[in-house]
């Protein structure tokens, strides 16, 4: 469990599931919002990492 990526996946899943369940009532809406949040968190992090790649320091 020392990998940044594993923690990114896991942490995003917990937060996405939480807000999906908190902010929507129907299961299908909860799943859709949860998936959107998860993709935004993981995708956003990877995009930011890619942008920072040329500037290691």
């Amino acid at each position, binding site marked *: *469990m*020392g990998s940044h990526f594993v*923690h990114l996946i*896991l*942490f995003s899943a*917990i*937060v996405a*599931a*939480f807000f*999906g*369940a*908190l902010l929507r*009532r*129907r*299961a299908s809406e*909860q*799943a859709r919002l*949860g998936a959107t949040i998860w993709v935004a968190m993981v995708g956003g992090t990877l995009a930011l990492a890619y942008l920072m790649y040329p500037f290691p320091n």
Partner: protein
Amino acid sequence: MTDESPADGRGAAPRSWPVGLTAVAVLSGWLFPGLGHIVLGRVRRGIFFAVLVLGSFALGMAHEGRLALRDERGAPILSALQVVANAGVGLPDLAARVGVYGEVAYALPGDPREAAYGERLRILRDRTKSIASIYGTAYLWTAGLMNLLLLFDLWDIGRGRKC
């Protein structure tokens, strides 16, 4: 995920509960994640949130996350906010502190000459020495903050603003 059954209120108008019961639910929800929703009859929702919050808390403890102590000599406001984020989980945080510090400790003593000051600081520093500790801290504080958000959800359910 937590789609409510008819018995849980699906399709019904929002129902309000007495203020006293709502307050009991909020207190229960703070003391033990998910319990407040169960008190208000939202059993599946309560179990789902309990799994998420306690799962995040367990990951935090497994990665030696920071159980913050208020430090009035260093950064009093910031360290107090960290303690609030930790304490949001309620009793599990208290039990974890007893396990880690050997007592219910939420602050460093004001006088650094006190024996407890050095001892608590040593335990805190030893615990956060591991590289994984930063992940653990994120999980711990997220668990606490999620549970604090759930208290607002409980209040809305209890006062009939939400099904």
